[in-house]
């Protein structure tokens, strides 16, 4: 289950790693430093994720990587019983969830300490970084006090 994968064995990590293409390099680069940062428009201050070239709100190309509080709530989830990639077969059932950060962005992630049968909308969460390999850190989330 996902909450059992919160501290991965680095030598044995068999799951697919994120494709480091374009701004994903920067996003995961900050994660490696245990910082959750999202793009924020320098002109109008609108946060966004996934990363883009332009601010869809005001049209600006000027972007900064702003640090998130890492605090959010559970927006939705699916609990996967049948793996669609063989690498995930040992983990079922695991929940792939969507977390909504306080600043607005939403992202796909895993929860490290909430089993799939305890999920409900709005659970308060905070980021928990998992250094899955020496090169790659995945942002995951754990329950926090409201």
């Amino acid at each position: 289950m996902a909450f059992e994968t919160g501290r991965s064995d680095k030598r044995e990590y068999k799951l697919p790693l994120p494709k480091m293409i374009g701004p994903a390099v920067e996003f995961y680069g900050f994660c490696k430093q245990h910082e959750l940062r999202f793009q924020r428009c320098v002109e109008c201050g609108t946060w966004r994720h996934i990363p883009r070239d332009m601010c869809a709100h005001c049209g600006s190309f000027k972007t900064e990587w702003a640090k998130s509080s890492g605090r959010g709530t559970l927006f939705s989830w699916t609990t996967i019983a049948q793996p669609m990639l063989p690498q995930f077969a040992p983990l079922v059932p695991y929940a792939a969830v969507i977390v909504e950060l306080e600043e607005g962005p939403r992202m796909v992630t895993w929860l490290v300490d909430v089993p799939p049968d305890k999920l409900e909308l709005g659970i308060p969460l905070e980021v928990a970084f998992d250094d899955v390999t020496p090169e790659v850190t995945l942002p995951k989330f754990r329950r926090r006090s409201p």
Partner: protein
Amino acid sequence: MNPLKDKSCIVGVGESAFTRGSGKTELQLMLDASVAALADAGLKPHDIDGIVGPPIGAPAEHFAANLGIENLRYAASVHMGGASPVVALQSAAMAVACGIAKTVLVPCGWNGYSSMRVSQPRGGSGNAGGPLAGTIGSYYLPYGAVAPVQWYSWLATRHMKMYGTPFETMGTLAVASRKHAHLNPNAFMRDRPLTMDDYLKARWVSYPFRLFDCCLETDAAGAVIVTSPERARDLRKPPVYISGIAEGHPYPADDIPSRPDPFVIGLTFAAPEAFRMAEVTPADIDFAEIYDCFSYVVLLQIEAMGFCKRGEVKDFVTRDRVELGGTMPVNTHGGLHSEAHVWGINHIVEGTRQLRRECGERQVKDAEVGVVTGWGDFGDGGLAILRR
């Protein structure tokens, strides 16, 4: 009046055999369907001068070369996953209405069981390509969310929890599709019963979807031929008019979590356009062939089309509405759930046959106007309003 309204019509429909193990290439399957559609229309291959090709399998050039179409005046393709066939119909309607082509072939199909079974992937990084590949590869893949049944579950879970939709609403659709399939000799599940109890006891695939919330995996193709009303007069079968048609895309189309409102889907934008074009309202619709890759996707589309208000689909989807004999039967052929997974081109084929009143035991009585939807990628949509 909208310049596309009733300016084109479907005059031929056809399909390949529906199997698990076709022993054919995808092009061969689609050529089988195309030849059947030509025969249905009473047309020869050289009568075709336009092709809106499928998103995968073969380009228009290969259809033209095999069928002997020497002068192909219009070739296009639509890349909207399961919305592609309905949106291809829009492209065909535009080409015919503008005089760019006189008669357009729309084929679609695949070896969805024997070649690229979604539930039995061979590793790698999942199935999606095109505009979604970057999002999935960089942001979903590390968390094992790589298949449609998982992505659409995010929408279903939130909607279900917010509006209290019971599993039985999803099951009502699954059971209705199966009952309809029993009246369809072409349906893959024509001999396999399904009860609500079977539905509720089935294994989980990806919560909130159990096995019978999911479409079939089959080798199958279909084809549709579109021409002008003038030309249709000389053909074998009565024309079925494309009265309203539109496409729509959720925003942003390439990422599900970041949508301001996750239940604003492609059809939310397409439906008002198509109904306005056809000059009808949801109350006028006699039957609905709704893209049913997964049960809850049908529920989201019913709300997005305005058949009921948001959150009320649990009260709208009842046996006495969606089953044959009900007030608006849904997926009268069995759909992707119980007929075959043909990317929804089988929904266009069925809608056409219903309006020609060729459907025998599963005929919707006095069918005058029906809707056909497509859903693909992360919620792209197409809506065709067809009338006899």
